[in-house]
C-alpha cells in the first residue's frame, strides 16, 4: 500500500492515478476486512473502488489526461501536511492499545448496544438504524443534498445551452 501511495503521488498521468486510487481502495477494503469491519469494507469496495473510479474517469474525459506542471513550489503544503501527520502520530501514541476491552470507547454506551434489546443479529445495523436513527436520517439527507446540488449545478447547462456557451469547457 505504501508503495502504491508513492507511485500515486509521483505519477503525472491522471488515468494511471485514477486506476491506482481504485486499487488503493480495494487494498483498503482488505485492511478493513482484516479489522473485522465488514460493513465498512463493503462500502469502501463499492464506493471507493467502483463508483468513484467511474465518476473520476467521467471527469477525466472532460479534461486533459496529463497533469500540468505545478506553478509554485510545494514546500508550504508539504510542511503543513508533514506537521499535521506528526501531530496525528503523536496523538495516536496516547490512544489505548488496539482492541483493549478497557478502552473508554468500550465502556460508555457500547454495553447497552450489545445487550441488543432490538434483537437484530447485526449490531451495526441496529446501531445505525435504531439507536442512531437521527444520525442516519441526517446522513441520508446529506446524500440527498449532494444529489440535489449536482442537479442544481449541472442541469442548468442543458436549459441554458444557447446563452451559456461562453463558459463551456
Amino acid at each position, binding site marked *: 500500500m505504501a508503495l502504491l501511495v508513492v507511485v500515486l503521488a509521483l505519477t503525472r498521468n491522471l488515468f494511471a492515478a485514477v486506476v491506482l486510487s481504485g486499487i488503493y481502495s480495494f487494498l483498503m477494503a482488505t485492511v478493513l476486512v482484516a479489522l473485522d469491519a465488514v460493513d465498512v469494507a463493503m462500502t469502501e469496495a463499492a464506493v471507493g473502488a467502483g*463508483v468513484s473510479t467511474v465518476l473520476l474517469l467521467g471527469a477525466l474525459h472532460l479534461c486533459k489526461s496529463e497533469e500540468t506542471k505545478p506553478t509554485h513550489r510545494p514546500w508550504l503544503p508539504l510542511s503543513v501536511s508533514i506537521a499535521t501527520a506528526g501531530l496525528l502520530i503523536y496523538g495516536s501514541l496516547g490512544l489505548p492499545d488496539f482492541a483493549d476491552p478497557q478502552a473508554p470507547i468500550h465502556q460508555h454506551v457500547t454495553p447497552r448496544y450489545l445487550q441488543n434489546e432490538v434483537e437484530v443479529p447485526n449490531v451495526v445495523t441496529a446501531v445505525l438504524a435504531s439507536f442512531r436513527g437521527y444520525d442516519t436520517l441526517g446522513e*441520508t439527507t446529506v446524500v*440527498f443534498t449532494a444529489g440535489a446540488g449536482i442537479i442544481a449545478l449541472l442541469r442548468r447547462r442543458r436549459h441554458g445551452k444557447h446563452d451559456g456557451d461562453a463558459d463551456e469547457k
Partner: protein
Amino acid sequence: MKNDLVLRVVGKLLIPFILLFALYVQFHGDFGPGGGFQAGVIFAAGIVFYALVFGLDNARKLMPDRLVETMLASGVLLYAGVGVAGLFLGGNFLDYFVLDHDPIHGQHRGIFWVEVGVAVTVCGVMLKIFYMFASRGRDGRDGHSIDEELR
C-alpha cells in the same frame, strides 16, 4: 466499449447477480454485513456497469431520469415518514417500538423501512451523479460522451 464481445458477455452474465446481490445485502442486512447504504451503492454500481458496457442511452431507458429523481427524494421522505408514523402512533420521532403491537417487531419493521429509504436515496443519488457527469460531453461542443470515449 460497446463492441467488446468479452465485456458484453461477461456483463450480461454478471449484472443480474450484482443486482441480486444488492437485494440480498439490503434484506439480509439485519443478519449479516450490509444495509441500506451498501445495497444502494451496489445496485447503482450494477446499473453504471450496464451503462458502461451497453451505452448510456440504454441505461437511461432502463432507469429513466424521472425515476432516478423520484428515488432521490422518496428515500428521504420514506425515512422521515417512518419517524412521523412513530409520532402518529403515540411515540417519539423515529421511535420504532410503537410501530407494532410487539415492540421487537416494531423495531424490525422500523429498521426495515428506514434501510429501504436509505438504499433508495443512495442509489438514486449515485445514478444521478453518474448520469450528470457521463452526459456532460454530449451536450457540449466536443459532442462525444464517456461511452464513446471508452469504446
